[in-house]
Structures are given as C-alpha cells and as structure tokens.
C-alpha cells in the first residue's frame, strides 16, 4: 500500500471511529434521559438530555434529545414549575450553542426555547405580582441579550483560521521549493517559489483581518 493511501484510509477510519463513539454516547444518554423521564425524575432527565447534546452529530440522537428536552421544558412551564422549566429550556439553548461549528444546529429549537425562557427569567426577577408591562419590558430585554450575535463571528473566525493555515503552509512550501534536494539543477529558485510568497502574503492578510474583525 502506498503511504498516501494508508494515510487516507487511517483518516477515514479515525473519523468513522469518532462519529461512532459520539453517536453511541449520545444514544446512551438519551436512553438514560428517557428512563428518568418515565419515572418523572425531571432533574435527572434534563441532566442526561444535556449530556446527550454534548455528543451532537448532525441528524443524530442528540438532536432528538434537544427536541425532547424542549418539549419537557414547555410542559414544565405550562405546569408552573418555573425553575425546572427554565433549566430545561436554558440547557436546550446552551447545549445546541455548545455544539456549534461552522453552523449552529437546530436553530428552530433555540428560537422556540428563547421567548419562554426570557419570560420565565423576567418572572423570577420581578415576582408574580409584576405588571404585564414590566414583565414584557424585562422579557424583551432578556430576549435581546440572548439574541445578540455570538462572538467571534463565523466569517472572520474562518478567515483567521484559514489565513493562518495558508501563511504557515506557504512558508514551509516556499522553503522547500527555494532549497530543493538538488540545487545545482535549479536555475532560478525564485521562479519556483514565488507563488508561495504570494500565498503567504494572502494568508497573512486574511489572518490579520480575521483576527481584527472576529
């Protein structure tokens, strides 16, 4: 087997192993959450749903866990168990945000959880005797806090990361192109290496810009 083939195969096996382990653990936690919920042990259920979300894989068991935890939070809110409901809804939100990569999974569930969560927080702050006007004002305020864009922004962060890989890779590329194994046969090392200098400049600029604006 060629080394490149072996490397590629190893990477595929490694990624498959990660996906397998992550999904297995998400499923296990989801099962534990369901068992606890069947016994009406909501606190334990929320803990296991949250752990399941820690093992998020797109379209996997973790997304089912997020949906079920949202449903549980809404149910508890309807029953007036405000603290438990707030905890469940808050965990739906934080679990999905904690699994974000180049995208945030299930924004629809987050959008459903946030208004109820904001109202529960306002209620806990103002007390049950608060006027509807005050309640709406504070709910709006908490909702605004939750809906602020996450930092660092995705675009600049991607630019910073890709720029960094580009300029560091280009320096190494430049060095090995400029100083080949058999220098006597190379007439103009600059001609061979200049594209790397260009990519270095591009990567460096991208990196600086990404860091500045992310």
């Amino acid at each position: 087997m060629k080394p490149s083939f072996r490397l590629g195969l190893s990477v595929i096996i490694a990624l498959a192993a990660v996906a397998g382990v992550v999904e297995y653990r998400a499923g296990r936690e989801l099962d534990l959450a369901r068992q606890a919920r069947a016994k009406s042990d909501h606190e334990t259920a929320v803990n296991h749903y949250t752990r399941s979300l820690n093992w998020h894989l797109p379209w996997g068991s973790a997304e089912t866990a997020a949906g079920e935890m949202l449903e549980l939070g809404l149910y508890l809110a309807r029953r007036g168990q405000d603290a438990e409901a707030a905890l469940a809804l808050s965990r739906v939100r934080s679990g999905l945000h904690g699994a974000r990569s180049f995208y945030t999974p299930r924004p629809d569930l987050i959008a459903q959880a946030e208004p109820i969560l904001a109202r529960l927080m306002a209620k806990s702050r103002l007390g049950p005797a608060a006027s509807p006007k005050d309640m709406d004002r504070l709910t709006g305020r908490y909702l605004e806090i939750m809906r602020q864009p996450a930092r660092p922004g995705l675009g600049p962060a991607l630019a910073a990361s890709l720029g960094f890989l580009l300029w560091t890779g280009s320096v190494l590329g430049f060095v090995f192109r400029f100083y080949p194994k058999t220098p006597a046969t190379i007439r103009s090392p600059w001609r061979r290496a200049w594209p790397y200098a260009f990519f270095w400049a591009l990567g460096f600029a991208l990196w600086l810009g990404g860091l500045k604006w992310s």
Partner: protein
Amino acid sequence: MPTLLTGRSKGFTPGPELVLLPLFFLYLVTALPAIGWRDNSEFAVTAFSLGVAHPAGFPTYSLLTKVLTFLPLAGAPFRITLASALYSLICLYILYRMIIYAPTIGPDESTQSRSWAAAGTILVFGLTSTLWTNSTEAEVYSLNILFLAGLFYCALRWTGEGRDAWLYAGAFLYGLAAGNHGSVGFYLPGLLFYFLFQARRDIPRRLGLIAFFFLLGFSVYLYLPLRADANPAFDFGHPNTWDRLLMHLTDRKDSEAHFVAARVGLKFLDHLWIFISQTAPPVFWILGLPLTLIGAWRLWRRDWPLVIFLAYASAINIFFFLHWAADLSNYLPAFLIAAYLAGLGGSWLLSRSALGSSPLLLGSALALIFIAWVGLRLPVQDRSRSFIPLESYRADFEALPPEAITITGHQWFHQRAYQDIMRLREDVTVILSSDFVWPQWFNPVTPARFPRADVPPDPFFEAEKGEYLKKFVRANLEQGRDIYCEPFDLGTRVFYTHLKPALPFNLKFQPQSVEKLQPEEVQSALNQLRRKLEKELESEGLVEEVGLHAHYIDLMFRYAQFFERHREIGASLAILRFLEDMFGPAGTNTMWPNYRARLHEGIGHNLLAAGRYGEAAVRFEAAIALDRYDYVAWANLGLARLKENQLEPARQALEQALTLDPKPAEALYNLGEYYRKLNQPRTARQYYARARELVDSPQTKAQIDQILTELDKAAQP
C-alpha cells in the same frame, strides 16, 4: 502480502498507523467529554473564541486548535480535547520517522529492526500516563512536543542531507513553537551550538536567514495585541499596548516563581532527588535508561553535537520545572528525547538479536504490551464519564438570579466557558477578581467591558488596592443587583465580613457588615457543601479526577479560611476534616504532598485558634514532614510550642523558619514573644522591631508599637 499475525514473511515492517490507530481509539474513548479544570477550560475557551490566554498567551495553540472547532462532531470542548490527541499522534508519527531515519543510525541496522523499534517506542511513549493524560484534555503540552519533534526531525534531515530547506523549516517551526509554549526559548543556546558545529560554510548568511524564518514563525504573537484590541470576553492581561504585551510575553507577574528552582540551592537538590526517586517512572531506570544510553552512544558516533543538544534540552527542561515535580506534563520534552534515544538503542539491540527477525513474536509482544498496559491503567486514565469539571460549578452558575454579578477566581475559567462556548446565562456579569485587585497584570474593569454593571468611573490604576472594588460593590448593591463571590479573600482581607454563604461554592455580598454568622447559616452552608460533594463522590468518583487537586481542593481551603475569618473555627475544621476524609488514609492518599502539607497546616492553624496547641503542633510537624521548607508550618509550630511553654523546641522551630523566608514577620514576632517570656526585653525588642518593619497591616503595626512601648517602660529604671 505479509501480515503481522502470520509473520509468514520475515520482511514485514510495521507502519506507524498500526500503532497510531489503536492509540487514537484509546485517546478517543478515554478523553474528557467536556471542559476540564481551570487551564483546560481556559484553553477550550481561548481556542474557541480566539481569546487571550494567561502568559505568554499561547497564540499558536489557539489558532491551530480553532481550526478543529469547525468540525461538526460533538460539543466544542470535546473537539478541542481531540485536538490534543491529534497533536500527540502527529508527534508520535514524527518520532517514528526520526527513529527509522537511516543516516542517523547507519546502514548496519536493518529496516525491519528500525521499524519494530520505532513502533515499540511510539507505543510505549503513547501509553505513558503523562502523554495519555495530555492527549485526553485541552492542554498545550502535546502541541509543544509536536513542535519539538518537528524541530528535531528538521535537524536530523538537515545534517543527514545537507539541504538548507530543513534548516529554515526548523527555524520557522521554532518560531511557531515559541508561540505555543515560551519555555522552548531555553533551547536556543543548544540549537545555536548545534548549528555552529554542523554548519561548515556560509555561517553569517545562514544565521541571518534562520533569524528571518524564526521571526516569521514568531510573528504569530501579533495575535495577542490584535485580539486584545478586539476585546474578547476572555482577555487575560489585555496585551493591547507594547508595555502590556511585553509584560504578558515575559510573564512578569509570575516570573519570580518560575525561576525559584534556580535560586534555592539545597531545595533544588531535594527536588532533584524527588524527580529521580518519585517523578521519573521506576521502569525508566530499569529499561529506559540503558536503552537511552545505548541510543545516545549510537547517535554520538554519527552526530555528537546532536547528542549534546538533546542532553542540554533535556537538562534545561528538567531543571526549569523541577520545583513543580508533581505535574509530569512539564517534562514531556525530556521524555520525548529519552524516547527517541531509547528507540535508537532498541533498534541496535533488535538488529543484534534473533528477535529482530521474528515479526510474529514482536507483533505479539507489542499487542501484549498494549492490552496489558491499557487493562492496568484504564481505571485511572479513563475520564470519558467525568462531567464534574463541567457540571459542578455550572450548578451554582445556573442558580444565580437574573442579571447577577459574579466576582470569581477559580470559577472564572469555567464561567467563561459557560458563556463564551455554550452561551449559558449571558445575562450574568462575570468578572475576574484579579481584574479588580491587580489591574496592572490582568484586565482593568471598565464600563465598556461590563455594560450591564455599574462601573465607577475613577481612574482605576490609581485606586488603592481593593478600594475600587469596594466602590463597585457598593454601587451595584445600591442598584439592587445580586453580587456573588467565590470564597476568596481578594487580596484585601476586608470582604469576608461582607459575605454570607449562599450557594454551595459561592458567597453573597451583603450591604451591611456581617458581625456574626448565625449558627443555622453556618450549618446550612456546611450541609449543602457536604451534600454536593458527597453526591459527586458517589456518582462520579470525585477523588480520581485529574486536576482536582489544584482547583476544587483550593476552593475548599478558601471556604475553610472564610469560616476561620468569621471565627467559626468548628466549621472551618469541619471542611478541612471532610477534605481529609475524602482522600482517605495515607496509604490510599492521592492528594499531592504539597496539598497534604497545606491541609495539615490549615487544620493546625484552626486548632491553634481553638487553643488546642498540642494537637496543632502535631499537625504542623506532619506538614513539615511533607515539606521541610514550609515556612508557615515552622513558624506556627514555633508558636504552638511557645503557647505550650516548650521554650527550647519553640526557639528551634522559629529560628528554622527565619532561614526559609525573606520576610519572616511571624517568626520574628514569635521570637520576640519567646525572649519576652525569658525576660530578655532588650533581645525581645530587637525581634519585635524587625517584625514591625515587615508587616503591612496597620493594626498589627499598632499592636507591635504597644508592645514596644511596654518593653521600653519596663526597661526604664
């Protein structure tokens, strides 16, 4: 095709993936599932949010690790942990390449013996608990040794092939490595020595190019001012100006502590002995050292400057970190070098034995090592179910009322992870206590940073230590905000009287000074702390958690101190004794010796306050047995003996204490007491006066002044 299992072909050579894939799977299934303690949390946050970590900032780590956070697999902290595993595996791959690199060893050793020796070496090194631990948590050490391995590999290829590309690639990697862990700077003299002895021609021009490519790599530090300027939430030291950047890079805050090993003569020898007898695994001296020496001898014949450089790099690594003997991660560079040399030694041995041509036997031996070692170490190394670092502090954080303010120390790293990665409770204002107390080293508190809090507009740097914090607390309490604080004296000792227990690990600021805690408040606080810890002990195996020592335990020390300051000696003792019970009798004690010493010292201090001098003395002696350079334990032992009227032992302990601290105010004061008891007022006066010069507290100064006046009166005829 020849296979490992049948061994039909004698020409079979194991590729690195045969070892690396099982190791990857092992790291994957035993890795921390979420954030870890303190620095682990910190690195997870700074990598995810492109923040600024503690000195020297670790920009290379943050930038490289950030790339992996874009993978949509599991929670972000787990991805960051997997980055550590990946760095370790690439490091092991390079180590493999280094060992099989033919020009280093010479043509008299077969490819087969080199490959088997390399596979065995990376397997054993990958299974060492130090590398295993560092591959299963968010830390910078695995990336550090990856860069070092890369650097060594470049050096080998440069001298082996004479191609300057390797020289400049090495210089560039060295610059990047400096951006990951500043300690690589210590290798510079060794690297220069190596270059000067190997370079035969054109030295000035090549040195200039080396400096150029190094600086290119080192330019990664531009990250710090750029990110500080963007005001990320995690912005340790805020290095946005030239002065602050220099302070951050040189770690001026802790630089004295870093070089302590170099200045403490005898203690250095003690630490060296601890390293030899306890830190380095015993198996190294039996198997590793002979192989390492053989490898060094083999390499010496081909490339003696490299051996000198590697020996220097190992020695400087061990020397610099010697006083942190308990944390083996610091020694990974030395372990890497030993592994390389041992691999060369192993190759030489295999080429001269019948074993070297028996793939079936060698393959079985490696498989056996893997299975046996994993079976043995798995219960200790497996942290895959350890959610405590994520969940323990989170319970307090989630229980905070809306728009509360938390002033934090240990919990800051975790609370930042909750907000910056998980976007949990973004309504809470989280402030690092050090930002208030040491703004010159941390990040000054400004209205722009904390728009939801009432931040006093004073010029912060000119404020007296703690005064600014008092104004901040007062202003926000007046606005009806709830302010919480973890047990921590904030460097001022004045805030404990304004705090009451509220959550298991957090106290709450009170508008009025609390003169006396009510018995039911104390009992309730102890109960909820105990319930929490017992629950975690039962469900999670609290004691086994790595990193617990430095953080969780410290918080309990501080909680005990809180009760002690409130003169609740019983409660303080209860916390410390609970801590002692948690870790069990000496035989099964997993608490690091310095923390055990501190525990004895804390209990002794409480017993002293309770007037139980004999018991206190026993505790101080136990602390001294664990650390004979512990100034506080000696000074307190002297005091306990003095209270018991055992004057000669008291004097001996106090004079020993005098030799251990440059500002031994307590020991001097107690020696004053000693000579006063002996009715030698003139000598007593000298000690009191010396103690007075060293104390900061105005109250203590006034107390000493009163004693001095009394002594002067007594001396008058």
